[in-house]
């Protein structure tokens, strides 16, 4: 699956705006994502390894609640992670 992140997170993905990872669920894909981009881990995940509530997740354009990340994902699926807002 392909992950896209909002622009405020690009500096934590080595400025890659599209990252292809393997995984059969969104959650598994996220673990692969933060493995590929270690700087992104503390930005995306809290101390318990859960996605921070300040981010929104979309699977193929449809909002995916943060408690449903075990949703199945296919190789051609696109997952967008967008921060709701920042305090800058």
């Amino acid at each position, binding site marked *: 699956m392909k992950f896209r992140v*909002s*622009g*405020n*997170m*690009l*500096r*934590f993905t080595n400025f890659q*705006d599209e990252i292809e990872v393997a995984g059969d669920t969104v959650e598994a894909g996220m673990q692969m994502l933060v493995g590929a981009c270690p700087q992104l881990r*503390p*930005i995306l995940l809290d101390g318990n390894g859960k996605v*921070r*509530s*300040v*981010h*929104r997740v*979309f699977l193929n*354009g*449809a*909002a995916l609640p943060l408690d449903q990340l075990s949703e199945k994902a296919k190789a051609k699926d696109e997952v*967008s992670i*967008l*921060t*709701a*807002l*920042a*305090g*800058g």
Partner: protein
Amino acid sequence: MPRTSSFQVVTHTGHFSPLQLQPRALLSISFNALSRWLKEHWVSFPRLIREHRRSVVIMGASLHYESSLGFFDCDALDVSATFRVLKAGARAQLDVAFSGDAKQAARVRIQFCPVVIDDPVSLAASPGPFSADLLARLHDDEVLPDPPERPMPTFREQIEGTGIKLAEHAHSFVLYRHLCEVADQWAFLEVPGLVGASREGLALERGRDFPLLSDGIGKPLRRFEMELMRPYFWLQPGQVITTAYRVGDDLALVHRLTSNIPGSENYGVIVEQF
């Protein structure tokens, strides 16, 4: 009396168009006025974020031009700013008065939503009131229970209800970094430039069909009302959808900010009156 921060800005040519003080300049100086007020009377902006894990995001702004003031009319602007917390800590408001040549040139009001910083590195945040500790440092007349006023929806309704629709225009943009702030999120003070580009494009494209559109490039802006719903982030594509109206003899424009990325497509509404 609520405390004020007063200072002078020695002007340069970049603050002005041939017609007036640029709206971007007014918002930029106003944001600096906020920083000054925070540092002088409360907690500096960097410390507010770093030590108190609080910041503000802009929900709306009103600009009123009171008199014409050009680059050659004065050597400096006198700026005076007052900050208040509203809704018992859940909102905040900054009022800024600009004077030059011994007359009031413009008034700016900016509405803020306090946020709680979730991650101090990316500054990702969520809405949340100022802490009790922070509120305790303010004077009593700087913390009000009232909600903020919202002039934009009424103004928009008045224009769309009584005005004659003239023409529409779409202006696409990409939010490059020079339009962003420290969190790689858009800087609200760039909004007048984004909608101005759409207005100017409309005037150039359709001015022959509707001569009134030329007021949007040939006459001074009188009033600017903005409400923002959500932010753009660095490198995000967006669009300004502009609709021009004749209201009496005057030109007014309603601009909608949109984007086609997942989530809502409504980012803000701005109304300009010439």
